[in-house]
C-alpha cells in the first residue's frame, strides 16, 4: 500500500495530521500565506495557499486539507501565481499603506514581504478602502485597522488559542470590523492583554503600543531571556536598541511557552528602568520610608519578628514568596518559615 504523495513531482511521505501546506513547506516548496498561524485551526481565508490537486475541479486551500496517499499536488504554475498576484493586489487595495509601521519598526511584515516578492508593492487596484474604527485608549495594544486585511488571525488566536474571547469579526463582507463586542476600548472587554494578537498580525494593524516609535528595525537587537515574573519560565526576547531596552517579543522556540506570553511578560518588563524600582532597603522613620543599610533593615526585622513571636506565637506569621525569586531563594524562604519562625503559613505567588 502506498504511503506517499507527490508534491511538485517529488515523492513525499505522508505524516499523520499534516496538511498539504505543511508537507509542501517541509519539502521546500514556497507556498504563500497570510491567514495561516500553525497554532490555530486553519481558516482558509486568504486563498493564497491554494494548490492544484489532481482530480479536484478547483484549487484547494492547502492549509485546510490533509495530504493523503497518492495525492498529486502542484503548488505553483502560471495560473496559480497569477491568481495569487491578483489576490495580493486586491488585499493591498483594501487598505493601502503609504508607510507600514510594522515594516519600519519590526522589519518587513508578511503582507509587504509578499507584495515585494510578487512585485505588486504599488500596483494594486483603485477603490474604496475599508479601514475604519479608530485607535483606542488601552495602554498596551495599538490598533490601527486602516492597516487591517481581515485575515482573522487575531480573532482566532484570541478565541481559540487564548480563549479570551475579547475580539471578534463583526458584520459581513467588506464592512466587517474587528471589535471587542459592546466596547470601543479593549479596557472594558474580556481582553487580558496577552499581546498574542499583536504577535500574529501580518501587517501593522496591531502593534505593541509601548514600543511604538522607539526604534527602527535595523537598530533592534533581540536578546533571548526567560520571563522573570513567575515560575513557568516563558521564553522572551528583550528588544534592545542603542543600549536601551524598548520592549519584549516572544521567543517562539522556548520549550515552556512556544511563543505564548501573558500581560506581565509581554508588557511588564519595563520595570527594568522604572524609577520606582527599589535599589536599597527602605525603613519607615517618622512615618516616612527612607533609605537604610541592610544591617539596619535586617536588625529591625529580627527585633519585630521576635516581638511578634513572643506575643502571639508562630501562627501569627504568614510568608509569601515571590515567583521572581530563584528556586533556591524560595527554598530558603520556606526554611525560614518552618525551621526558624515555626509556621507552615508559607505560599508562593505562582500558585495564585
Amino acid at each position, binding site marked *: 500500500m502506498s504511503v506517499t504523495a507527490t508534491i511538485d513531482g517529488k515523492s513525499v511521505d505522508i505524516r499523520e495530521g499534516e496538511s498539504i501546506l505543511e508537507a509542501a513547506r517541509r519539502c521546500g516548496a514556497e507556498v504563500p500565506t497570510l491567514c495561516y498561524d500553525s497554532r490555530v485551526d486553519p481558516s482558509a481565508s486568504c*486563498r493564497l495557499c491554494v494548490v492544484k490537486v489532481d482530480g479536484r475541479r478547483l484549487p484547494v486551500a492547502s492549509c485546510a486539507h490533509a495530504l493523503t496517499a497518492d495525492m498529486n499536488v502542484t503548488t505553483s504554475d502560471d495560473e496559480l501565481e497569477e*491568481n495569487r498576484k491578483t489576490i495580493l493586489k486586491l488585499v493591498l*487595495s483594501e487598505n493601502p499603506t503609504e508607510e507600514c509601521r510594522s515594516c519600519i519598526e519590526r522589519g518587513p511584515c508578511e503582507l509587504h514581504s509578499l507584495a515585494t516578492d510578487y512585485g505588486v508593492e504599488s500596483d494594486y*487596484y483603485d*477603490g474604496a478602502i475599508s479601514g475604519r474604527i479608530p485607535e483606542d485608549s488601552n495602554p498596551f495594544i495599538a490598533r490601527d485597522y486602516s492597516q487591517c486585511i481581515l485575515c482573522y488571525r487575531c480573532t482566532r488566536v484570541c478565541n481559540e488559542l487564548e480563549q479570551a474571547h*475579547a475580539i471578534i469579526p463583526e458584520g459581513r*463582507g467588506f*464592512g466587517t470590523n474587528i471589535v471587542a463586542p459592546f466596547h470601543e476600548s479593549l479596557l472594558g472587554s474580556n481582553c487580558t492583554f496577552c499581546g498574542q494578537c499583536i504577535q500574529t498580525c501580518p501587517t501593522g494593524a496591531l502593534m505593541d503600543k509601548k514600543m511604538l516609535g522607539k526604534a527602527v528595525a535595523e537598530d533592534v537587537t533581540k536578546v533571548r531571556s526567560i520571563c522573570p515574573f513567575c515560575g513557568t519560565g516563558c521564553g522572551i526576547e528583550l528588544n534592545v536598541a542603542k543600549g536601551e531596552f524598548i520592549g519584549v517579543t516572544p521567543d517562539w522556540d522556548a520549550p515552556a511557552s512556544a511563543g505564548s506570553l501573558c500581560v506581565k511578560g509581554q508588557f511588564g518588563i519595563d520595570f527594568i528602568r522604572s524609577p520606582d524600582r527599589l535599589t536599597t532597603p527602605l525603613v519607615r522613620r517618622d512615618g516616612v520610608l527612607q533609605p537604610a543599610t541592610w544591617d539596619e533593615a535586617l536588625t529591625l526585622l529580627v527585633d519585630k519578628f521576635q516581638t511578634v513571636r513572643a506575643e502571639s506565637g508562630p501562627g501569627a506569621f504568614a510568608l509569601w514568596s515571590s515567583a521572581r525569586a530563584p528556586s533556591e531563594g524560595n527554598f530558603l524562604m520556606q526554611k525560614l518559615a518552618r525551621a526558624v519562625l515555626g509556621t507552615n503559613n508559607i505560599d508562593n505567588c505562582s500558585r495564585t
Partner: protein
Amino acid sequence: MADRTGSHAPFLPMLHDAMEHTETMSEETLNALSNALRIPASYIHQAASFYHYSNLGKDHVLREGTCGGPTCCLPGVGVRRGTPGEGIACPGLCDQAPAALAGGVFRGTAADPFLPPPPPASVDGVEEVLFHDIRIPGLRSLDVYRANGGYEQLRRVVEQDDAEEVIVNLRASGLLGRGGAGFPLAAKWQAVRETPGDRKYVVCNADEGEPGTFKDRPLLHLNPHLLIESMAIAGHVVGATAGVIYLRYEYPEAYDVLNEAIAEAEAAGVLGDFDLQVARGLGSYVCGEETSLLNSLEGLVPWPRERPPFPTQKGLWGLPTVINNVETFCSVPAILERGADWYRHLGRDESAGTKLYSVSGRVARPGPYELPLGATARELIEVAGGGPLPGRAIKGYTIGGISGGLLAAEHLDMPLDYAAPRQHGFALGSGGVVVFDDACCVVDLVRTCMLFYEAESCGKCFPCRVGTVRLRERLDALTGRAEPSANLIDEFNEIGAAMSANSACGLGQAAPLVLHGLVRFFGEELEAHRQGVCPAGVCHFL
C-alpha cells in the same frame, strides 16, 4: 427566554425569541443567549451581527425597503439603484416585481402571498410532477393532501423497510440535486446511510435566496406536506430521526404554514419517530450555501466550511447529514409512486425528470413554471413566460438566477439543463431566468448583480470580499457613476479569474459569471459605455 429544550438547532429560534422582546439587542440578552446555548458570547455576537434582519447594533429590525434585486431594478419594473446598501436583498417575489418590505411585510404587486403558479403553458410534453397537485384548493391541510395520495409513499417505505430499494429507484430515476450543484440524490443518501452513527440529520435547504428564483416558494406555501413527507422518507432511508427545515427569513408565511402542517402530521401520527422542526433564517444569501447553512444552525458565523469533510460525513453538529433543496426532496414521492423510468423520461434527451424554472423580468407572464429538464430558454421565456413585452425584443437573460451566467438572445435555444450551460463555463443553478430586453442596459443589470454579491459576500475569503467590491466599482464607472480606468477589461478578467478559481465557496466563484457573459456576448454595448454612451438610454454619464 422561551424554553427551546429539544430543539435540534436552538440558536436561530432563540435569537428570534430574543429579538421579539427588545428593539436593540443588548449585551445582557446576548450573554443570556450565550449561557443558554453554551456558546461563547463572542461567537454569538459575531453570528448575530451577520444577518440583514438582526437587531444587533441597530435601533430596530429593518422593516422598510425596496428590493435591490436584478429583476426589481430593471427599467419599467422598479427603481434603478444608486449606491451600495440601498435596497433589500431579493425577497423572492420577482414574479410580482417590484417587491418591497413595508411595515415588516414582504410584498410584490400581488395582494395574495399564496398565489399558485400559473397553469402550465402549451409547451410540448409538459407533465407536471412537483406542481401536479399544487392548484388543488386546501392542499395545505392533511386531509386534502392525503385524499390526493399524500403520505402513501412514506407509509410504503416504512412498511416495506427496504431502504436499498428506495436508493436503487432514486438512482435509476437520474434525479440530480436541484439546489444548483446537481449532485446525484441517490449517491448523497447512500453516503449518509453508509456513514456509521446512531444520530443523523435530514436538513432541507429552504433558503431560496438566489435572485430571480422563487420556485420553492409555491411548494412551501401551498404543498407543505409534500416536503414533510419527502424529508420523513429521507430520514427513514438514511437512518435519521431528526430533521430541520432551514427557511429563509423572507418567507414568513411559509414558516407558519410549515409549522401548522408539521403539527397536524405529528398529531395524526404519520411521521412515526421522525421529529421535524423549522428554523427561520435572519436574512443572508450565503446561508443557502449548505455548509454556511449548517454553521448558521449551530449558532456560528455562517461562513462556508472547507470540504471535505462533506455534510454526508460531518454535517449538522458534526453528524452525518442529508441536505437537499426543497425541490429535490419534493421530487422523491412521485418517483417512488410512478417509477424511475417514468420520471427519467420526463426530461429531454439525456436529462432526467422535470425542473422548476423561475422566469422574471421583461416577459409577459413571469412566474414559476415546471418544464421538462432540458427545455430551452426560448420555451421558458416565449412559451411559458408569454414572450417579450409588447413591442419589445429580448436582448438576453441570466441563468441560475443570476449566478449561472449571462447569455444573449442568440442563445435562446440553449437547453436549460445541466450540460449545455457548461459549454460557456456557466451553470443551470437554481433554474431562475431573468429576462432583459432592448429597453434595458445590460451593463447596468450586471452592476446590480454585483451590488448584490458585494452585499452578500460573507467576508471570510479575500478574493470574494474585496473582488466583489472592486468589480462593482468598475461597473459603477462604466454606468456613468465614476471615471472608468484604462485597463478595465484586463482588470475584469484578472479579478474574475482569481475569484472563480480561489474563492472559498460558490458565491465568490460564481459572482464573476455575469461579467464574463457581459464581456463575451455584449462587447459592443460594453465598448459604447466605455465611450460614455448607453445605447438603451438607461445610464447617465457625468
